[in-house]
């Protein structure tokens, strides 16, 4: 018997966690002599108050959806893929190569090609730790962390070498015009009123939404998803049923790496339109928090990604318009991660007890 109704588990707990993080953040802001209420207003206004703000929030959210989904699918196979950061970096390399060296006739084909390239590069990067885990028992947490550093080094190597554009910067050349993806500004332009002016959100957001739906169907409607979940819940049972652990570890990690890699079509192809150093900016790690908060469910991931998009954009605004230092923005984001991800049980236990005593009281009356 479940202790709590489902709605409490998926909505109430995250909501209370966010509220606690917000209260603590307010205290921190108060402590440095700023007005937390003003700060909150500024964040909401900056992230959601205009289509420009929304354009940034959704852009960040798109990144987090991809990396969050990547962590989620690995979670379902009880694999902790911390390598989203590195896989997204290498995915970016794939996007850059495909955009720079293939003469695409139209952006739609370029998007398709880049998405496939990003997925293959990301998956290939995840394949090595996956293979080591499946065949050699090397712990995937350790290997994926190490592969983040290796990925950064590989990118460095290419950006000061083979792919470097003329000039001082360690970056590739600008991608050709035909590969540029339509931004929200291009898509929602109705004569004199232009929405999302100057914001980086682009068509990739819809690819991310499609990925959510596709992953949901994969996990809960297909045999592969069934096998992945079986393996994740009980390896011994999976073996009994004839499900190959090697196959599941490999497949789950390949999908995970592919999703993380696909983030690159948003930030590299969609926004920067060239590949720069540290293009991922920590989105791979945020993906872990997003997956935790979203309970590894694709729709939960979507909501959590939107929240973190809001925090990112709101935080940037806060840093821009107040004397709250940039470091404090990171503290606030960390508090949200801490409460929603790490301190889940702190909220869950008392809430479970509450529901239990409520049910007891109810049963007591009916008996």
């Amino acid at each position, binding site marked *: 018997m479940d202790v709590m109704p489902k709605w409490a588990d998926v909505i109430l707990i995250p909501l209370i966690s966010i509220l606690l993080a917000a209260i603590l953040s307010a205290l921190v802001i108060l402590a440095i002599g700023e007005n937390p209420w003003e700060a909150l207003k500024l964040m909401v206004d900056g992230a959601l108050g205009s289509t420009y703000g929304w354009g940034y929030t959704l852009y960040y959210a798109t990144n987090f959806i991809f990396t969050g989904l990547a962590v989620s699918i690995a979670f379902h196979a009880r694999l902790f893929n911390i390598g989203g950061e590195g896989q997204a970096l290498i995915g970016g390399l794939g996007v850059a190569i495909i955009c720079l060296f293939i003469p695409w006739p139209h952006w739609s084909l370029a998007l398709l090609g880049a998405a496939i390239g990003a997925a293959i590069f990301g998956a290939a990067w995840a394949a090595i730790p996956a293979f080591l885990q499946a065949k050699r028992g090397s712990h995937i947490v350790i290997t994926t962390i190490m592969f983040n550093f290796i990925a950064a080094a590989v990118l460095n190597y290419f950006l000061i070498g083979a792919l470097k554009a003329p000039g001082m910067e360690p970056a590739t050349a600008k991608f050709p015009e035909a590969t540029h993806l339509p931004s929200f500004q291009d898509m929602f332009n109705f004569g004199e009123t232009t929405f999302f002016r100057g914001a980086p959100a682009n068509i990739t957001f819809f690819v991310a939404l499609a990925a959510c739906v596709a992953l949901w169907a994969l996990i809960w409607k*297909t045999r592969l998803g069934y096998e992945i979940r*079986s393996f994740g*819940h*009980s390896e*011994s049972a999976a073996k*009994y049923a*004839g499900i190959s652990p090697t196959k599941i570890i490999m497949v789950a990690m390949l999908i995970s790496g592919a999703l993380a890699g696909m983030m690159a079509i948003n930030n590299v192809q969609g926004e920067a339109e060239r590949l720069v150093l540290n293009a991922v900016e920590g989105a791979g790690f945020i993906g872990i928090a997003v997956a935790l908060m979203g309970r590894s469910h694709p729709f939960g991931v979507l909501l959590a990604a939107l929240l973190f998009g809001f925090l990112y954009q709101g935080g940037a605004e806060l840093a821009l318009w107040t004397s709250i230092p940039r470091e404090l923005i990171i503290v606030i984001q960390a508090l949200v991660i801490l409460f929603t991800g790490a301190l889940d049980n702190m909220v869950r236990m008392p809430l479970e007890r509450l529901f239990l005593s409520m049910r007891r009281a109810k049963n007591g009356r009916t008996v």
Partner: protein
Amino acid sequence: MIKGRAEKSARPFAFKRTGAPMTDQAPAIELKGISKAFGPVQANKDISIRVMPGTIHGIIGENGAGKSTLMSILYGFYKADAGEIYISGQKTAIPDSQAAIAAGIGMVFQHFKLVENFTVLENVVLGAEDSGLLRPSLSRARRELKNLAEEYELNVDPDALIEEVGVGMQQRVEILKALYRKADILILDEPTGVLTPAEADHLFRILENLKREGKTIILITHKLREIMEITDTVSVMRRGEMTATVKTSETSPPKLAELMVGRKVLLRVDKAPAQIGKKILEVKDLNVTDDKGVHRLKGVSFDVHAGEILGIAGVAGNGQSELLEVLGGYEKATGSIKLNGEEIDLTGAKSDGQSRRTRGISHVPEDRQREGLIMDFQAWENTAFGYHHDTEYQRSKLFMNNAAIRKDTEEKMARFDVRPPDPSLAAKSFSGGNQQKIVLAREIEQNPDLLLIGQPTRGVDIGAIEFIHQQIVALRDQGKAILLVSVELEEILSLSDRIAVMFDGKMMGERMPQETDEKELGLLMAGMTTEPRGPVHEAVEEQLATAGSTAAKEV
């Protein structure tokens, strides 16, 4: 303290009914109104019992009835939500196991708590050293062990390493540990689960000796026979409640079973003589070496025919599990297995559970919680488990037909009387018996040529045992071959049409159930084909210790 007890207990019939004190003698243990809840589950509900000194008190109940919880409260592992504990008439608080030991309570757990690479002596002393220096404690313990051995027939070799002695001796070490700590009250949790019949008899003799010396013993078990054999009084638990406390001499197995289950149950299996058909399974010279390099199966050969139940008896850890795993397709082996005359792959891509299933082998694994079911999955997801590639469960090439699986589950639940019949309930929410019925329904209704079934009624309530046995016999009567592995000799004897005994990875021989008995099978289980000279239990133990069989294999 001990002396005083011994005098008092010399009085016959120290027992009296709960709540009606008639003599001035204080009970060794009295629990009053103990309640304990884990989340929504009420594990113990207002339990009161009193155990008189110098008696053996049995606590019987099905798995999950709350026996172990109650004893864990008594030993300080859990804190009761309500209730009081009296030891020898003194109200005693037991916040931890140290307090329990100080109060004179010793506990022998089902899974022994011994340091494998320490000697017997070191294990006895561990945690009860007299001073910072070890040597004086050890020599005192050595003297004491000698006295205890003479007094109670508790023979151990003080210098043997635990990992090198048999399960029977390990259990005696646990008892000695408790006695060394001056325990007057000894609690034993399912002590015979890992013992052969001869060893169990020996244990009971030890318990009788302890009782004669005035110790109080609480025996937790689910075996009616043990209760009848050795206890003076017995308490029956059902769903967290104490349903009755009676004198053992005034009750009978059917009465106890009825108290445990709440309705009348059939303790015997009704079956017609087997109609034996053609050979279905032919195993020849099967060998398994596990990944630790231990030779688990040594040249095993046997046949199973259509319409026949072949029962494999043996102490847990003597190769039966590996045999099932090989046949089920998830352990590598050498040798030959033929099903319906066709050779089966033992290694390579075609040696997994999927290909075994398509060949017509169904498998009810020994451990349903680790293998047979995914405890977090809902019942309907578990019904498709292992058969999720079956065409009737697919909507298209890509998608599964979850609605069809649900419908199938509903029908199977109805046919196998799974309660509650809700396909959306997680497997962990069902009782042990109903979990087993879900597995059984899945495997039997595949209409297999060969059914592998391991420990079919382990952790299953008596009411469900009856049903499960009927289903197995019914499948046999349809002309299917059945390979039954069980550590319960009673189950083997009552279900099998032919019995094979395994010991140390080898087949010790086959017997017909009507021509053998527990005694003979017990010897075979210890690798002996003739009755040994001298005490049987010692010879048995010697054999099992050297066989490298480990109780650890049993989950």
